[in-house]
């Protein structure tokens, strides 16, 4: 199909008309909620950093052992946290958020087509991230409580977000960089 701009040359004016629409703004200030969420997500990490490091190390060692024995597939179902204890309200709330977020990201990634291999670095990065997610899943399987699972779910979400950025946004970053490199000086000021 021909590009719309060649089909309807006057459609170029649509962009001007759309940009002339008033810029909407939110009725409520979202910062207080966002700041609270940021602080809530930082707080548990500050409470038990040593425990998390021990857990991560132990989990990694166990995962490496298990990975040698068990085949791992990226198509495995979402890990189920074993014996989630009804601990403090705050960690449980964040845990639920992380699990939901993880599920959303996974569903979103599953809908993306398999990307063409553009360069070896991207392919290696993708494989590495997927491997790390697999390791986190193994640690999640071994977690015994919500408190143990929470930092793992955080890590899982972080990795999925990295993967989604890698797969979903590479074009955007590349273009933004190209735009910056080719921008007229007068347009930057």
């Amino acid at each position, binding site marked *: 199909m021909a590009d*719309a701009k060649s089909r309807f040359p006057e459609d170029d004016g649509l962009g001007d*008309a759309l940009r002339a629409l*008033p810029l909407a703004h939110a009725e409520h200030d*979202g*910062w207080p909620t966002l700041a609270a969420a940021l602080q809530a997500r930082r707080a548990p990490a500050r409470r038990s950093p040593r425990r998390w490091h021990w857990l991560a190390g132990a989990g990694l060692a166990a995962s490496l052992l298990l990975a040698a024995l068990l085949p791992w597939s990226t198509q495995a179902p979402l890990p189920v946290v074993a014996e989630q204890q009804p601990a403090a309200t705050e960690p449980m709330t964040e845990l639920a958020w992380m699990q939901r977020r993880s599920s959303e990201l996974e569903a979103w990634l599953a809908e993306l087509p398999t990307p063409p291999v553009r360069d070896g670095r991207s392919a290696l990065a993708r494989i590495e991230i997927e491997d790390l997610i697999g390791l986190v899943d193994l640690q999640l399987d071994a977690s015994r409580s919500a408190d143990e699972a929470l930092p793992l779910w955080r890590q899982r979400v972080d990795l999925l977000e990295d993967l989604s950025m890698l797969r979903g946004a590479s*074009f955007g*970053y590349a273009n933004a960089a190209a735009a910056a490199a080719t921008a007229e000086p007068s*347009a930057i*000021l």
Partner: protein
Amino acid sequence: MRSAEQGLAQYGGSFAAFNGRQRRNIGAATLCDDAASPYAVTTSSFQIDVSEIVLAGARRGDLAALEAIYRHFERPAYALALRMTADREDAREVVHDAMLRLFERIAQFRGDAPFWGWVRQIVVNEALMRLRRTRATPLDDIDDVAEPIYAGPAPWHGVAQRELELALARLPALTRSVIWLYHVEGYTHPEIAEMTGNTVSFSKSQLARGNQRLRLLLNDSPEASYG
């Protein structure tokens, strides 16, 4: 509500210099050197420069720096999310989730691309994910039915903004998003195809059909005129 100036007050009053370099590119389009879309321009309201001082503070997790960034990008982020979702609550949640994700990743930003482009990409991804999640058939295509081709003067030149807003809101979510991302944000068809998990030809057809549907809706509008 605290302003960006207040949030930046802790950074030695650098806001004035920062604000002086702020670039809101509406009306000052930057040409993209992109063979896939030779007419594409980046005209995004996201095009705001953020100082290295603020970015350094944000990388350290300084809440005042994060707030300053939030204040700068809140409005373009909300406006873009609202155009894509056509729902105020969804748009608010998109901004919240996108900013949360941005701030948790900000230490990884290396500065090899414009910061605003990174922010915008995260907002677009969040909005697309929300569209997929919140709608039963979230990214439905416009039916490929034969519609009369309007080749006359574009109706959006003479129509009231409110009418254009209403017509835009009546388009399917994906079609509306493609139109906005292409015409306003300056994304190319390959970029839109990648982000939405579709093909380049799909993006092009969505744009063409969306434009045609807008013509249809606006030509039926009682306020349509071509004076």
